[in-house]
């Protein structure tokens, strides 16, 4: 299985940022097992890194690889759109 590389941009422990981390961790645990690399970037510390990646608001999740690159904004509570952005097929229910 290919490794999914992601960057999550957050703002310190602001509520949506904390929520986004929790939501993403749950999704990764369930759907990606160990096949992912996640870097969490605090834009209050490293605003220029976010700008370099074209990120203007947090929380934002950027999928770096495999291509196509994708971006999703918000606290990642909408699991379907996160799976879609990460290119993970939705489980049949």
């Amino acid at each position, binding site marked *: 299985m290919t490794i999914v590389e992601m960057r999550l941009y957050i703002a310190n*422990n*602001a509520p*949506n*940022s904390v929520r986004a981390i929790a939501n993403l961790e749950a999704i990764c645990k369930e759907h990606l097992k160990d096949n992912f690399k996640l870097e969490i970037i605090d*834009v209050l510390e490293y605003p220029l890194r976010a700008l*370099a990646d074209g990120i203007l*608001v*947090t929380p934002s999740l950027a999928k770096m690889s495999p291509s196509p690159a994708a971006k999703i*904004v918000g606290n990642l509570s909408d699991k379907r759109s996160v799976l879609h952005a990460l290119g993970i097929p939705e489980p049949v229910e």
Partner: protein
Amino acid sequence: MKPDLRVLDGNPRRPDAGPGLSAHILRLVKSAPERRAIASGQVDAVIDPATGKAFLLPAAQQALREDGASVRGLLALASDWRWEQDESHRFVSHTGAASGSSGVFDESIIGKTLRDPPFDTMSEADWRAHQRLLEWRAAFRDLELGCTDRAGGMRSVSISGEPVFDAQDRFKGYRGTMRDITLRKQSEALAQKPLRLACDTLDALAVQLCVLDSAGNVILANKPAGAFAAGSRGIGAVVPVGDNYLAACDKARGSERKDGVAIAAGVRQVIAGDSPLFRHEYVCNSPAGRCQYSLTVTAYPGDGAARVVVSRENVTERKRAERIPGNVTGHKVAEGGPIANSLLAALPAKDYQGLLAGFELVTLTYGEVLFEPGEPIRHVYFPNDSLVSLLTTIEGHEALEVGLVGREGMIGISLVLGMDVSSVRALVQGAGTAMRMNAARFRRQFRKSLPLQGELYRYAHAMLVQARQTAACNRFHEVQGRLARWLLMTHDRARSDQFLLTQKFLADMLGVRRAGVTKAAGSLQQRKLISYSRGKIRMLDRQGLEAASCGCYEAVKSHQ
């Protein structure tokens, strides 16, 4: 100052700093998904590309404030001293290791703002940006300032602060921390020197540069690119940092569509690694008028987010200069300097100027056929340094040369005599440039200009003499004398002692078999008049060659 916190979305628990902040955020954040996320309260912070800093939205600010007590304890460990300011941003207290009798500041700082001494070196723009944050009651982090310490030395400090509100949500001022970062700044300044040099160099380039990531987003642009971005549209515009270059190309419409598609395809190829380089030249409309650009896309060396570098140069001036006749051969025709073609050079300035607008400078390549017998003459040519043979073809035989035209003449002389169909094949046998004019325009100019008529009638007559003489010469004279004549004629017209000619070509020109040319050339070489090897003929002794040529050379020359 009255707090401008107010409720925007009907949720009384989420204060907002008012329309100023909302409008600013709308300016920064343009994409629909991001705006939706903001509207639904899912966003904590926004980054302002102008200042390169993130600021917390009010809801996140408040949440962080609520769990601020424990954070403050930690902050005390990470900072040198703490401070408090009143509603007008004046210091009301400061405590910590760096203050007091041994520290950076003493009590004299009380009552001062960050704009007053001992603080300094904040530019007007930085100050305005900071003030905006203060007006929005936003938290600020790591504001770096220069200041003068108690002993009069220069120091650097990093200041972070957050607004303080009372239980009724009334703004009471700011409080925060300050760190002495003098040592860090000094070492950074040293480390940044080469980087700054590199950045300044990029900004000083005349070329517009931008760096794209794998998705085609612009992640860096140099100053000329930034300066150009303002006020341009279409593919003439530079795509600003943060926008997608490919999307901008795809959006090109009308006459720019084709170039937009080509550029996008080229950029994609280089991003994908299919090609290391892509070049494209195009014309587009800019505020300064029609501009010609040369665009180059190269792969970005190294790993990381950056994938390709797009450089773009405005080549309008250079292209224009190339089009000015004579520039290529080193003569400034427009300024009345020497003109390469002798027919044109003989014209009075007024008549020449009249022709100039209709001329285009073209490059003729070796072996190119300008017209075939029976074809309409679409253009006339005045060679600068090119050489063109006029050939007559007879069915069943190789073509035979009946005229040679260089900078002394013109190709398309039949037009002067009222015929607009060529009777000969015009074959380029010496590459170079020529001035070309469309036949219809030439006829109009010809009718208007008596001096031009005079020159061209005289030249038509000279060509007639040349053809007659050549016909007789080919029939009666030895190959060696004819070859010498031909070489002399070529030498007069080309501006070089050396020509590239194969034996086959010479045989066709002179209407003889190859063996005949080999023998004649061998004989001239033996007499040290020419050297000949692998198609390269070099003239060694012009006078000797004149003596060896048949009398036809002199006869033709005397009529020119």
